[in-house]
């Protein structure tokens, strides 16, 4: 009797541990193995456009993370009631709701950031990472899993944006977070223009692929 009880508790606990591990995995996969920018090559349009300074990149990443988590929760909640034929419009409406929240909040509390991100905040509605996670993950998984998936993908996107914009801001403007790094350094204007974004993203994707391959090859 006692032994049965102990066994139940043990199994319960291991199941719980297993569950937590799974959630953690859903979170961490977004950061490296399935990083939306570097591995899935999703959401490149906002990445190219707003990664001119670290502040912009971080702001955009945070906004997208909020929308991701919110839309993932709602989509996951209603996944059983949405007819599959009209699921995409439904997802878009849900996403647009959260984007509107972000947009209005940003306008009210971070007017400068909102001004410099411009059209790209409302354009999160059509960001393929958000729609992609709703379609590929949240519409098939439980709410808890979807939350962690959204958090992980958002963190991965933010990380990618911060890395790219740090490189571009340092080389193209000679600054980090607006502070001059090195006096006498002549910044290469190209890096804060569009070709610089394409170059930096291309080289970073190449580097990530190289190291991933090396890891799996060994």
């Amino acid at each position, binding site marked *: 009797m006692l032994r049965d009880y102990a066994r139940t508790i043990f199994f319960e606990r291991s199941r719980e541990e297993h569950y937590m591990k799974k959630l953690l995995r859903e979170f961490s996969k977004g950061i490296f193995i399935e990083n939306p920018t570097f591995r899935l090559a999703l959401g490149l349009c906002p990445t190219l456009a707003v990664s001119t300074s670290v502040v912009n990149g971080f702001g955009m990443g945070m906004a997208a993370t909020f929308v991701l988590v919110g839309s993932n929760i709602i989509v996951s909640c209603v996944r059983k009631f949405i007819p599959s034929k009209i699921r995409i419009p439904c997802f878009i409406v849900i996403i647009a709701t959260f984007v509107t929240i972000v947009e209005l909040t940003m306008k009210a509390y971070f007017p400068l950031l909102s001004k410099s991100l411009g059209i790209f905040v409302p354009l999160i509605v059509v960001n393929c990472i958000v729609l992609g996670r709703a379609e590929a993950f949240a519409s098939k998984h439980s709410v808890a899993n979807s939350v962690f998936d959204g958090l992980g993908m958002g963190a991965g996107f933010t990380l990618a944006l911060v890395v790219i914009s740090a490189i571009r801001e340092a080389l193209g403007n000679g600054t980090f977070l607006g502070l001059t790094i090195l006096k006498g350094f*002549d910044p*290469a*204007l*190209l*890096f804060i*223009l569009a*070709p610089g974004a394409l*170059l930096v993203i291309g080289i970073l994707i*190449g580097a990530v692929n190289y190291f991933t391959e090396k890891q799996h090859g060994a």
Partner: protein
Amino acid sequence: MSGNNFTVSPAPHIRSGLSTRAIMYLVILALLPSGVAGIYIYGFSSLRVILISMISCVVFEAAFLKLRNRDPKIALDGSALLTGLLLAYNLPPEMPFWLPVVGGAVSIILAKQIFGGLGHNIFNPALVGRVFLQISWPVYMTTWKNPRWAVDAVSTATPLAKEGAPLFNYMDLFLGNHGGCIGEVCILALAVGAVFLLVMKIISWHIPFTFIGTVMLLTWIFGGDSMFSGDFTFHLLSGGLVLGAFFMATDYVTRPLTKKGKIIFGIGCGIMTVVIRLRGSYPEGVSYAILFMNAVVPLIDRYTKTRKYGLQK
């Protein structure tokens, strides 16, 4: 590739004795008069730019070949030297020493080695380096130097950048008596090199003549205040048109393979150059035009694919 009767086409092939190395060094030889002219016109600062650019290109090539586990000696095959020389010819004669170094790194690493080295690059490496510098440091790249004969020469910009009617006579433009890049100013020296390449059959007439012809025709039609009144001689003699048409658009790696393709390529380069010169925000468009057409080369090659030997339609 030598000989009038041969075109690059599907098999069977006939071997010629001319190696890549020989072609590269012949092109460098053909470019020498223009370099000498540039040094003579602008003084020794241009020699400094040329040397730094060539040395850094070879060093970066060797270093990156080593990184890719290839024999670093390949760097001496002349292609890196040629890239460095062409890059320097596209730079103003006086600039900070690190500018040609950065240009060489971009040319060799970003435009050439990352794509897989000689023969695999999509874009002309020297032009990529030049455009990178042009966009990144526009101030250094448009600081021109007076030519040695300058008594009353205009020191601000290349003739192309000037508003209104040009103050230059054609003789000055032909000999290089004006501000400009090291290798593009002396049309006489470039013409000597171009004739040498044409006689040696290193390049064919298709790209340079259609390129220059298109530019002259279009600037004649649209370049003036009214139709058919443009100063086409001025557009031929100023800027990097001659250098670009004979020495850079004809780069073996980044041009189309067939005769028909080359003609399309040349005309396309000409149209893009004129559009940028007359309507764009930059005064000069040759380098952008060639890079743009480089990107289209795979399409041109597919469109002008030759019939396989012995194959009936």
